[in-house]
Every structure is written in structure tokens, then in C-alpha cells.
């Protein structure tokens, strides 16, 4: 229980689901060493951490931020630019982290001090404006960021796919630099999620929840709400930037589409809401379900679209086209805010609390 900070899943089905997801992630490189499966598994790890950090803001303090991808992008770009300009070395990775993480935290501090004083709604609008300006900047300052093309770079020797650490004939599966990178991502993501779980179950986390429930009352009890909110904002930004750094390390690339675009922000929102706001475990469930669906359901959609086109139905081929996947997600999003505001985790926990009916 120590490692979960005294906040277990509190539902048998949820526990089983989590164990399945984590076990599957742990053995993916051994069982499914293919490129697609590895990419999906890495994305689940990275997004689970990213979504958990967003949950700290949305679920625990009740403030909607649209700048989370900005911090994610700062982490990605810091690693990418450092490795691009300094060459593939561990010193470059360290430099990227040493520049990116404080930059993200400082920016979060600035935004927080500026907009969290007033109202939650102000914060949402200002983060949206700042994030869109940052996106424009990143795609325009091409001498630094590579513009729309982004930056590709080489990894340090140890993490390259060509580096064979354990050859195949020893255990029956090969461990190369790619596998090592995957486990670095997995362990780092797990550490971040456990750390966030610790944060939300600390007295500090309780204050955040008190602010979410009734800010005025929390203030009346003597808590400096602006301080707490800004602190949470900085923490979330730090974790998001770290997740971004992991993403850059895995992709060996950072660009506007993979790390900054507005659609990633929507994905994060969807994952939090589907998984369950204010639960932390919802981040893992939401990220796993969403990314699996994103990667494997789109194939299904294109089949359906082609079938509808062959049958000569009007409009349906366009609506079912894989590119319109966001349309259905948006509808799902509205429906889940409307009907299941507590998400999957909330549902499962509610079911566990009163099993007899």
C-alpha cells in the first residue's frame, strides 16, 4: 500500500484491469517486438503520465488548462534541440532536461500568477491564448525549432536500435537499445504516476480538492489558494515536460504535430474524461483505451467507410472516413461528460461500493 500512497484502486474490476494493462506493457517488447506494437505501448506509457499530470489540474483543482501540450512540447523540443545541436551524447540529454524542465515550470508559474488569481474561466482562456501563440512561435522560429518540419536527431549510442545488449541466442529474445529506451520510458512514466499519486494523497492534495469543491471556503480556512493552485500548475507542467522529453527520446524527433498541436490537447482532455477525472488511475485506463482505439479502430472505420461507399450510401462514407475519427470522439466526449461525468474509474468504484442490487 505504501507505493500507492494509501489510495488503492478500490474496485476489483479496476484492479484487474490495471494489472492487465501494466503486465501487458511490461512484456510488450518480449511478446510483440514489432514496431507498431512497441509504438502503441510507448505512447500508452507516455500519455498515461501526461494525462495523470493533467488530471492533477483538471480533476483535483478543477481548473481547465489548454496549455498542457505547450509544456509537453517544451520538454520534447528541449531534448530535440539539445541533441540536434550538441550531437548524440548523454550530456546533451542532461542539458535538454536542465533547460526544458525549469523553463516549463517558470512559464507555468508566470501563467499561474497571472491568471489563477481571478477565476477558473480566465485561466482556461488565457492558457488557450498562450498555447496558440507558442504553437505559432514554434513553427515560425525555424532556425531554432526547424519550423513545420521539426527536428530529427540521433540518440546516444546506448539507446540506438543497432546496439545489441543481449543477443537473441541467450534467452530467445533480443534486447537492443530500442528495448532499453522502452523500459526507460516505462519506468519513468510509472515513477511519475506514483509520484503524482503521492502528491494528491498528501495534505497538499487535500487542499487542492478543497479548493476544487469550494474555493471561497478553502480561502476562509486560511489556505493561500493562489499559492496552492500555482504550485499544482508548476508540478503538472514539470511532469508534462518530462513526458514530452520521453516522447522525443522515443521518436527521435520533435515537431509541431507530434508534440504541440491542439489535437493532442483534445486527446488529453478525452483521456482524462473517459478514464475518470480526479482519480489518477483514470489516466492509465483512459490512455490505454484511447490509444488502442485510435490505432486499431481507425482501420475498422476505413473498412466501414469503403463498405458504405460501395453500397452507394450518401454522406456515410464521408462521416466514416478514418480522418473523421475526431467527429466520433467529440460525440463520445460530450456523451461521457453528460452521462458519465466520473468516467470509467468512477463507474467501477461506484459499482464496487454497492455490489448488491
Amino acid at each position: 500500500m505504501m507505493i500507492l500512497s494509501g489510495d488503492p484502486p478500490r474496485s476489483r474490476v479496476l484492479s484487474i484491469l490495471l494489472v492487465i494493462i501494466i503486465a501487458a506493457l511490461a512484456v510488450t517488447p518480449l511478446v510483440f517486438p514489432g514496431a507498431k506494437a512497441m509504438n502503441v505501448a510507448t505512447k500508452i506509457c507516455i500519455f498515461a503520465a501526461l494525462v495523470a499530470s493533467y488530471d492533477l489540474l483538471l480533476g483535483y483543482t478543477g481548473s481547465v488548462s489548454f496549455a498542457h501540450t505547450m509544456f509537453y512540447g517544451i520538454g520534447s523540443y528541449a531534448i530535440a534541440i539539445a541533441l540536434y545541436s550538441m550531437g548524440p551524447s548523454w550530456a546533451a540529454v542532461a542539458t535538454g532536461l536542465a533547460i526544458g524542465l525549469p523553463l516549463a515550470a517558470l512559464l507555468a508559474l508566470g501563467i499561474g500568477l497571472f491568471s489563477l488569481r481571478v477565476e477558473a474561466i480566465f485561466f482556461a482562456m488565457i492558457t488557450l491564448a498562450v498555447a496558440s501563440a507558442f504553437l505559432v512561435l514554434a513553427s515560425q522560429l525555424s532556425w531554432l525549432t526547424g519550423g513545420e518540419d521539426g527536428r530529427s536527431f540521433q540518440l546516444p549510442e546506448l539507446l540506438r536500435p543497432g546496439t545489441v545488449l543481449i543477443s537473441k541466442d541467450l534467452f530467445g529474445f533480443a534486447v537492443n537499445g530500442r528495448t532499453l529506451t522502452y523500459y526507460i520510458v516505462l519506468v519513468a512514466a510509472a515513477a511519475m504516476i506514483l509520484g503524482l499519486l503521492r502528491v494528491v494523497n498528501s495534505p497538499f492534495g487535500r487542499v487542492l480538492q478543497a479548493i476544487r469543491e469550494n474555493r471561497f471556503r478553502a480561502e476562509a480556512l486560511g489556505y493561500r489558494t493562489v499559492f496552492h493552485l500555482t504550485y499544482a500548475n508548476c508540478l503538472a507542467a514539470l511532469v508534462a515536460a518530462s513526458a514530452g522529453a520521453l516522447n522525443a527520446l522515443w521518436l527521435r524527433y520533435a515537431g509541431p504535430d507530434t508534440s504541440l498541436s491542439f489535437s493532442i490537447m483534445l486527446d488529453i482532455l478525452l483521456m482524462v474524461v473517459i478514464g475518470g477525472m480526479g482519480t489518477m488511475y483514470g489516466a492509465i485506463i483512459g490512455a490505454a483505451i484511447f490509444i488502442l482505439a485510435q490505432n486499431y479502430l481507425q482501420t475498422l472505420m476505413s473498412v466501414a467507410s469503403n463498405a458504405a461507399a460501395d453500397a452507394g450510401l450518401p454522406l456515410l462514407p464521408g462521416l466514416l472516413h478514418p480522418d473523421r475519427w475526431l467527429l466520433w470522439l467529440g460525440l463520445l466526449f460530450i456523451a461521457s461528460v453528460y452521462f458519465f461525468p466520473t468516467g470509467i474509474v468512477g463507474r467501477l468504484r461506484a459499482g464496487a461500493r454497492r455490489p448488491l442490487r
Partner: protein
Amino acid sequence: MTDLAAPEALPKPKRDLLPVLLPVILALAMAPLIGSASSWVTLTVASLAMGMMIFIMASGLTLVFGLMDVLNFGHGAFIAVGAYVATLVLLPLAGWVQADSLLLNLAVLAPAALLAMAVSGALGLVVERVLILAVYGQHLKQILMTTGGLIVAEQALYALWGPQIIPLPLPTSLRGSFIIGDIAIAKYRLLAMLVGLVVFLGIQLVLNRTKIGLLIRAGVENREMVEALGYRIRRLFLGVFMVGSALAGLGGTMWALYREQVHASMGNDLTVLVFIVVIIGGLGSIGGCFIGALLVAMVANYGGFLVPKLALVSNILLMVAILMWRPRGLYAVTSR
């Protein structure tokens, strides 16, 4: 009763004129930097026209927030829908658009704008009933719901019209400029300024001089009291929401003609601009929104002329500067 003396006139609320002067000061301060008088006039007219269009789009958002305490993150969807609906009239009647006659041009522009307003307004009705009615008073859910609505609307536009950019040429008689001396003033910008002024004055008149406006303002101050007096405030708010959406549709049509193209992502892009304007003006204030729109447009135009690189972040810098001065925007609405 009749011999009672007329009650003492209420003390007039203090007028806060400083924000009103801000655009004027900004325009005058920029004059020496720009140098040539003709480019200054051109830039100023361009900013006024752009500001008016932004105001038309943003006014609905700020009205809806001021009156209903609903922040519609999907406001951009109405803008994009308005633009797309206008193409339904403008593209089939391209002959009239191309004709070199002001009468024919206006005969096709007016129905296009009216249809755009009607469809956006009707969409507003649906959105209010389906998305927002369930989440009145819950900011967090409002933001999530309306963001979801924006995604769905944008994707639906992609599905219906396809992902390509639709070119939308300006009517012939609105092309070109009036030349006075060495100053060129684009005709369409004059029209945009005119429409913007009419909308601004119309909103002010309705709010300040009619019974409906009185009820709306009373509802902002204290909605329960208005309900207790027997007025159905929900219906009033629904009307305001529809008007706000219709104005967004009108603004979208005008913006599409200004840019001479329509694209589904315009709703998303303009949402950010409109938000900045509404924040600068003070959430819920029509006058503040008007000034904010002018300021944003001026900074964009002057900044783009003087320091092109700066134009990318000029809006954010402007917003930061204004919020340092007045943390709740130029005109904070007192009841919030």
C-alpha cells in the same frame, strides 16, 4: 400624489473614459513611428475594419457570458458555420457576385449574410438546448461540453464540405479602393466598418433603450429577482444566445469575404482571437469588447507594419499589458 416633487435625480455613475481613449492614443502615438501619412491612414482604416469584424464575432460571446454566465468555447463553430452557409448562396450565384453592379452584388450579399445568421442562430438554439441547458452554473462542465461541441462542428464541416479551402471572391463592386490624394481606402473595409458600427449601436440601443434590454440588464444583476417578478428569464437567455450565435455567423461571413476564403479550421483559429478580445474588454462588457477588438486589430496592423516578427505574439503581449493594468479587463462587470 401629483403634488409630490420629482425625486432627486440619482447620482450619475462615474464614467470611466480612460479605456475609450486608449485606441485613440495608440493610433496617434503610432503616427510618428510609421512616418508617412498615407500609410498611417491606410493602416488605421484597416485596423478599424478588422476590429469591427472581430467585434461582431466577439460580441455574441461576451453577451452570452455577461448574461448567462456561460462561457462558450464552441463559439468559433458558429463563426465557421456562418461562413460555410454564406458560400451556399455566394457560390451558386457567382454570376451576380461577378457582375459589376453594386445593386446585384448587394442583392446576393444580403441574403447570404441573412441566411448565415439564420442558420447560426438556429444552431445556437440547438446547442443551448442540447449542450448547455444541462450544465448551467457549472463552469467546468460548460467548458468541456462546448469544447466537445466545437470538435464535432469542425469535423462535421470537414465531412460535409471536404478538407479543401473554398475560395470566396469579393463582389466586383466592393473590390479596389477609393483613392483620395495618395491615400487608398479599400471599399470592403468601409463596408465592414459600417456594419460593425451598426451592430454596436444596435446592441447598445437594445440594451439601454428597450424593455427587453432593461430585463436583460436586470437579469445580469440579479436573475432570481427578475424571475420572482414573473419574467421567464430562461427564454430571455435563450434569445440572447441565439442572437449571439447569429452575430457570430454574420462575423464569420464577413471575415470569410475579407480573407476571400473559407476553411473549417477558421472557427478554431478565430476562437483564440475572440477570446483575447473578450478577456481584454472584461468578460461580459460590450463596450470593453468593442475597444478590445479595436486594440487587437490596431496592434496586429501597426505591429505587422513596424516589426513583422512581433505580430506573431502581439496579441498575447497586448493582453498581458492590459491585464497588468486592469486584472479583470478594461471594463470589469461588477456583478461577477
